[in-house]
């Protein structure tokens, strides 16, 4: 116990924390009183989300031709955005589930944020595969529903795998997220002033009272969901990567894709988490809860994942060269670095591999501004990576006669920016009305540390 206690001594500033009552009030403050800067942000993101809706309407009414895609570039922004968002989702589950299993207590203060991020990222991610269809209104043909036609999905294709994976991932994350929130919803119910609020949170809390029996099942189920979500998070992005790996297109056709994509996914998710966490920390003055230790750990994780990513880039290139296949070699060693999107390739390498290397220095790891900027750079860099892989490879394939570049239209851009808008819109709503810090876990953590306190001194 004591070592563990020492281990997470600096995870919480116990001494400066108010008592449970005050803590609860502080953490639920935003749920009951909006802060002045919330509305403008909310409206701004709402406007962006509206742009998203407009772009979707155009796409569905006029046709997929309103995108920049062509033959050979059948997939470009749409699928890039899909892979990007779903990747971002991964950090959430990673932090809350994976670290839960590893008994990493520092996750406590940030896992709710991470999970919310996952859910909203997945909402975006699940929109794009439908939108990119030529006939979106038939998307359900990918699902094995009892069809009178007797024609079924083709499960040799990786797209039905995606459907299964994304659905499973979304639902499991949702259950995990909601179950974990029950005790805090109960606190919200019990500390709410107005009757309506009590009602709403009451219903959401499903009647949680902190009964020993409730905790008993909660404990088991939460751990179990964590145990399921962890392999799930690995499998989902592996499957997404199979969309490319099972083809024979040079630049897609690569067996290292699954691990490579999973790492990239967590990497990009951590980036966004930083971008969200740091402002929240300073706005709500959560320095006691989200300490330098958290920043440092995330920075270290990013350093690790970013470096692994760099290694994957190398492997990709080496594999192409080592295969001796002229098409692979051209795609990876000529077209990608020096082709039409060569600039993007180098930018992406800079952003994803070079920028995290800052985190070898502790100063950098705890410097919020630096962290936020690196987060931004990686956030963009990971989008570039997906674009370079997906669209870039398609522009230069086997027959030189079919080579053709891709130019995005305003619809492509609106869908990208709009999806970011929708994400912020949902996330701000969550911040405003939901307990975004797992209050009961904080209390438990503090209790453990206080308990451990005397032993340590002794």
């Amino acid at each position: 116990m004591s070592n563990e206690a020492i281990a997470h001594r600096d995870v919480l500033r116990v001494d400066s924390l108010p008592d449970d009552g005050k803590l609860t009030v502080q953490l639920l403050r935003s749920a009951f009183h909006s802060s002045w800067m919330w509305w403008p942000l909310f409206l701004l993101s709402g406007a962006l989300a509206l742009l998203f809706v407009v772009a979707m309407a155009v796409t569905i009414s006029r046709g997929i031709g309103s995108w920049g895609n062509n033959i050979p570039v059948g997939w470009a922004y749409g699928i890039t955005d899909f892979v990007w968002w779903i990747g971002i989702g991964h950090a959430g589950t990673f932090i809350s589930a994976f670290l839960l299993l590893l008994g990493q207590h520092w996750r406590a203060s940030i896992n709710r944020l991470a999970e919310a991020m996952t859910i909203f990222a997945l909402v975006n991610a699940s929109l794009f595969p439908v939108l990119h269809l030529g006939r979106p209104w038939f998307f359900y043909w990918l699902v094995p529903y009892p069809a009178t036609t007797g024609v079924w999905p083709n499960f040799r294709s990786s797209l039905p795998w995606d459907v299964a994976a994304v659905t499973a991932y979304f639902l499991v994350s949702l259950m995990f997220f909601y179950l974990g929130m029950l005790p805090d919803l109960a606190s919200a119910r019990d500390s709410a002033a107005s009757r309506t609020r009590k009602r709403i949170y009451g219903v959401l809390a499903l009647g949680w009272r902190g009964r020993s029996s409730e905790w008993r099942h909660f404990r088991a189920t939460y751990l179990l969901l964590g145990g399921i979500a962890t392999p799930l998070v690995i499998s989902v992005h592996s499957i997404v990567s199979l969309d490319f790996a099972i083809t024979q297109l040079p630049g897609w056709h690569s067996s290292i894709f699954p691990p490579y994509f999973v790492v990239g996914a967590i990497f990009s998710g951590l980036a966004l988490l930083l971008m969200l966490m740091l402002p929240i920390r300073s706005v709500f003055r959560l320095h006691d809860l989200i300490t330098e230790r958290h920043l440092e750990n995330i920075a270290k994780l990013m350093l690790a994942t970013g470096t692994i990513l760099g290694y994957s880039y190398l492997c990709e290139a080496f594999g192409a060269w080592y295969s001796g296949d002229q098409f692979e070699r051209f795609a990876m060693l000529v077209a990608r670095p020096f082709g039409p999107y060569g600039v993007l390739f180098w930018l992406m390498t800079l952003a994803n591999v070079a920028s995290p290397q800052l985190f070898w220095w502790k100063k950098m790891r705890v410097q919020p501004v630096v962290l936020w900027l690196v987060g931004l750079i990686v956030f963009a860099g990971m989008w570039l990576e997906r674009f370079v892989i997906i669209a870039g490879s398609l522009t230069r394939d086997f027959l030189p006669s079919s080579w053709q570049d891709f130019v995005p239209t305003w619809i492509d851009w609106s869908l990208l920016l709009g999806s970011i808008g929708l994400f912020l819109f949902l996330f701000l709503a969550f911040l405003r009305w939901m307990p975004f810090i797992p209050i009961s876990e904080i209390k438990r953590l503090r209790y453990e540390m206080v308990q451990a306190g005397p032993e340590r001194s002794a």
Partner: protein
Amino acid sequence: MSDSVLAEFASAQSMMATLPRLREARFSHLETFTPFDIPGLPEALDERRSPIGWIALAGGVAGVLLGYGIQWWADVRGYPLNVGGRPVHASPAFTVATVETAMLCAAGAAFIGTLILLRFPRLWAREDEVDGFERASIDRFWIEVHSIDSQYEADKASRLLKAGGALRVLPLSGGSAFTAHGGAGGAI
């Protein structure tokens, strides 16, 4: 004559300290209400393991059968097609979706199982009638000693609780405690 006694504690420590004393006094039908999951609580109450694991396992197995079954029926039995000269029964390909459905069903079973075991949603419980009880989810810790106990003696219980440093001890009546918080059945 009341069905049970309810005692409010200011701190987890004092509550946890009281529990063993009650058990020594052979009060075995104890129940606590706490804002967070206090380490050591299961031991203090001598709880059995939750059966959720088994429910999840069942769900997982069902998921495997369902997942692979659907794919097999659709592509092998229902509508066998020559797709790219690949074999009709492509087990490697079918595995992928099967894994996903397995995990989904396992998680779903666990989640729904929990709700059922806890009789959730349950928007009213008689403890709610006690004013100040709402702090059970904020910063107060409650112990309830149930009367269905063979050795149940209200005064003895309240004496022990007071001795344990309870802020207040109050008898709780109305409705059969057992049914009233059947959810606790698992604990008893």
